[in-house]
């Protein structure tokens, strides 16, 4: 009973306690334990996070250390190339043709510009800009490839100090010193010297020029291009540590640039300038070469252009002007102008005919002003409608009789003519030290079949006989061919380099013309004498020579051959009607007995060779001889 009552009592008390009371001690204990449990879970979570973070930090700092080291260095280290001074170019007498001047460019780093409009406003407080310049600056803003914007180029020292004083107005801008190429006779020398401009992708891929790391400018044309590797030198560099804003903290390493070598050309500046001044309103080419060694004394392609324009970032507008100019000033006519040589080819055709014994010096051809060919409705006309009567080779050359050479060409045949003209240098490059040379054209059956899918007609042979039709020669080829005549077959590759001076050792390396000497075999020296004498008659035999009626040079005699090439030309762009226009040509060498210079003159649309080209050549020869005598006098 007691037990049961006691049990009941305990149960009741338990129930009561359960209902109305909490045991604070046991409750606190469970709370302590449950908190301990949760705190331990929290500890575990903390440890998991700790481990994850540490392993990621290990990954970044230890595993990928080298990757980030490179990134860090490329962040702070900038390589700034230091441009090498380009070698100077002199003429044969040591007169400077191209040098370098120090200018300043006003630039701004694009990333420093927050607001373009505000920047432009502030800029105009500092420098005066015309609307075109502002437009160009805006275009540079849009060009994603540019990091720096060039505001002004080639600032003179005066303007430099003006801008430098007010620089605080726009702290972003920088005045960067720059060495700039300067051409002292920009128009007369434009084609032969070429110019220097910014390195382009084409230059980097080019095999003929070496683009050194950090090089910004490169010769594009002419001598600047051909001797780029000699002239350029090698840029140095500065390894700079910069901060995040690009400010230079210190120079880590520096390598000095190697100066380019100076070049001496065979050109005579005075002669070149004299010639250019005579012809700058015309179009054509004039070459003066020393046949004794291949030295080009004068290399004039006219009209020229201002080569100094290209050393700036030439604006599109001016470039387009040059490209679309009807006079085509950008074409180097001396090596890339291909002309029908006209009658200037006759001496060479004559030699071929003599060699092949088609004719001899006494062979006569009757000229009655035209030459009839079978199966040809229209006769081939001679320039002299009344005819030359019975002519031998010498007379035909002196009179430039067409009928004689029609006959000779017909007898010789195109195969023999084309085959034998190669030895005078026609139809192939002369390999003068310039790029972009054209090889002209000696047409033959094979060529015609290939390009026109047509058989060769005899009438075309006749045209080749007088240097017309498909036949094309460059002025430099004519010069070389003339020197074959003048030197009795002993010729030298035409060249412009006289020598260069090493910038490091000051040693002079001279071009050796003997390394490029060629002998043209002419079967009988007399053939040459016949033709040369005929060319003497052209100039000297009064009333017979086609160039004999002009004023003579007092002291010496020289030989030449006139040529008038008929070409079709679009009527100066005015209409699309093709009109016939004559190119005036003249090949010559002087003095007659011991040739010192070969002069080739081509004036496009210049009328007759005897009226336009020959007097030019005479003046050039005269000028050359007077200068030579002056020099001899002053030396004595």
């Amino acid at each position: 009973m007691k037990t049961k009552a006691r049990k009941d009592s305990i149960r009741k008390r338990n129930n009561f306690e359960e209902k109305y009371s909490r045991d604070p001690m046991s409750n606190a204990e469970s709370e302590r334990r449950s908190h301990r449990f949760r705190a331990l879970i929290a500890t575990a979570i903390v440890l998991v996070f700790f481990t994850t973070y540490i392993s990621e930090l290990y990954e970044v700092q230890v595993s990928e250390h080298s990757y980030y080291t490179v990134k860090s260095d490329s962040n702070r280290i900038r390589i700034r190339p230091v441009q090498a001074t380009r070698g100077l170019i002199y003429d044969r007498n040591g007169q400077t043709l191209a040098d370098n001047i120090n200018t300043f460019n006003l630039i701004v780093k694009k990333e420093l510009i927050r607001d373009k409009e505000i920047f432009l406003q502030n800029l105009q407080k500092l420098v005066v800009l015309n609307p075109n310049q502002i437009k160009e600056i805006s275009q540079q803003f849009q060009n994603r490839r540019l990091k720096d914007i060039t505001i002004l180029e080639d600032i003179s020292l005066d303007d430099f100090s003006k801008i430098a004083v007010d620089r605080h107005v726009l702290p972003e801008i920088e005045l960067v010193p720059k060495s700039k190429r300067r051409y002292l006779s920009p128009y007369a020398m434009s084609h032969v010297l070429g110019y220097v401009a910014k390195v382009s992708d084409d230059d980097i891929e080019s095999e003929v020029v070496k683009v050194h790391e950090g090089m910004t400018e490169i010769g594009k044309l002419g001598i600047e291009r051909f001797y780029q590797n000699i002239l350029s030198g090698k840029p140095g560099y500065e390894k700079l540590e910069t901060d995040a804003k690009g400010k230079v903290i210190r120079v880590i390493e520096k390598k000095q640039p190697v100066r380019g070598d100076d070049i001496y050309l065979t050109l005579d500046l005075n002669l070149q300038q004299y010639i250019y001044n005579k012809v700058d309103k015309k179009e054509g080419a004039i070459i003066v070469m020393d046949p004794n060694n291949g030295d080009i004394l004068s290399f004039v392609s006219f009209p020229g252009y201002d080569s100094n324009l290209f050393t700036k970032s030439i604006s599109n507008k001016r470039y387009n002007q040059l490209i679309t100019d009807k006079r085509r000033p950008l074409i180097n006519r001396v090596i890339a102008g291909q002309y029908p040589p006209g009658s200037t080819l006759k001496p060479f055709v004559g030699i071929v005919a003599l060699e092949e014994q088609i004719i001899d010096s006494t062979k006569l051809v009757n000229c009655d002003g035209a030459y009839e060919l079978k199966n040809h409705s229209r006769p081939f006309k001679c320039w002299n409608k009344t005819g030359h009567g019975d002519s031998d080779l010498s007379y035909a050359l002196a009179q430039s009789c067409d009928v004689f050479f029609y006959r000779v060409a017909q007898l010789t045949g195109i195969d023999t003519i084309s085959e034998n003209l190669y030895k005078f240098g026609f139809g192939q490059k002369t390999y003068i030290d310039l790029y972009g040379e054209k090889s002209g054209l000696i047409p033959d059956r094979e060529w015609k079949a290939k390009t026109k899918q047509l058989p060769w007609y005899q009438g075309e042979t006749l045209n080749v006989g007088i240097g017309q039709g498909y036949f094309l020669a460059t002025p430099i080829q004519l010069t070389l061919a003339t020197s074959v005549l003048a030197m009795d077959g002993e010729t030298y590759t035409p060249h412009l380099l006289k020598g260069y001076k090493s910038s490091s050792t000051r040693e002079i390396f001279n071009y050796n013309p003997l390394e490029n000497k060629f002998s043209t075999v002419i079967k009988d020296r007399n053939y040459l004498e016949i033709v040369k004498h005929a060319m003497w008659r052209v100039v000297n035999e009064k009333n017979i020579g086609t160039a004999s009626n002009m004023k003579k040079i007092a002291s010496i005699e020289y030989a030449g051959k006139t040529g008038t090439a008929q070409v079709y030309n679009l009527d100066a762009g005015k209409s699309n009607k093709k009109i016939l226009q004559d190119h005036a040509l003249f090949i010559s060498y002087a003095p007659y007995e011991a040739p010192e210079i070969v002069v080739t003159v081509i004036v496009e649309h210049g009328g007759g060779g005897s009226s336009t080209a020959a007097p030019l050549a005479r003046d050039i020869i005269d000028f050359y001889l007077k200068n030579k005598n002056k020099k001899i006098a002053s030396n004595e």
Partner: protein
Amino acid sequence: MNDYIENNRRPFTGLSSLFYIDLKLFMPIVIITIIGLVTIYSSSSGDIALVLKQFTRILIGVIVMIFIAQVHPDNLKLFAPILYFFTLVLLILVLFFGVGKSADRWLDLYIIRFQPSELMKIFVPLMLASYYSDKPLPPKTKYIFFAILIAVLPVFLIMKQPDLGTSLLIGMSGAIAILLAGMSIKFFLVSSFSTAAFAPILWMNMHEYQKQRVLTFFNPELDPLGSGYHLMQSKIALGSGGFFGKGIFNGTQSKLGFVPEHSTDFILTAFGEEFGFFGVLILMTLYLLIALRGLSISIKATDNFGRILSATLSLTIFLYVLVNVGMVIGFLPVVGAPLPFMSYGGTSMVTLFATIGIIMSIKSHQRILRK
């Protein structure tokens, strides 16, 4: 009663005991602050003025810590609601009268300018601990609802400022407190899902620059020179440090200005660049020691208030570390969150020392109720 006195006396030996200082908690912090001073000195290229300024803040922090450590936890518990609601009012005032550069976080009281949101970093855990202290644990569902309300109110107000980083940190410290107090698995799952559902609303309430930051975080290559720039450069700085670092004064990333904020939010990159993984490992271990010490204190604490509060606060400090380091190594989006005890700056330094002061107070004012 004897036990109580004895137990109370035993730890009170020496100077530190006299000031209720827990050396095991304090020592790692001292080392971290020294590391911070060295890093600031180095990354500012030897700007001693900057170091002195930071040192002054540390001193003020330590004084605040010692002061708070003297306060009995019961008093904290008592004043928690007053402090909490007072700060809540300040937060509302900030919305109307706040000043600041990009966001109005500061309240100008003419004498001092301060961010009420910083105070909430302490007061939310304090209020929650105080709220739970007289409830039986695990709490009933309705108490949890009130607890969530206590946490969410300031979070919402701070988000409106807008200060997404701080509001999320406070929200998480509130969540830690609530989780530590305990809840049923079912409730936990339900609340987790509802939080997830809340995310789109959060996204819609975010400002454009905040959205941008989150987007860049998920795809840093999108904008390597914009928001992603911070992350890229900080990883480069850390990674180029290697195992032993570039050596003091040799950090280029931070000194040359590639790492922005190299003395404040991104101080770890400056430190990691010069002291390497080795240095970072030591630093992270120090933070771990602080967290573990705090949790150990909470386990030994004698009442729920002390337990919840000390555990929450120490976990929160570790959370700050995780957020800052996570942001530096690309685990988390770039939010403005300083590295505790290291980053250059006054408010957070004082707040953190105050937090430590509270933990120390809980540790050193333990009452023994049993036996």
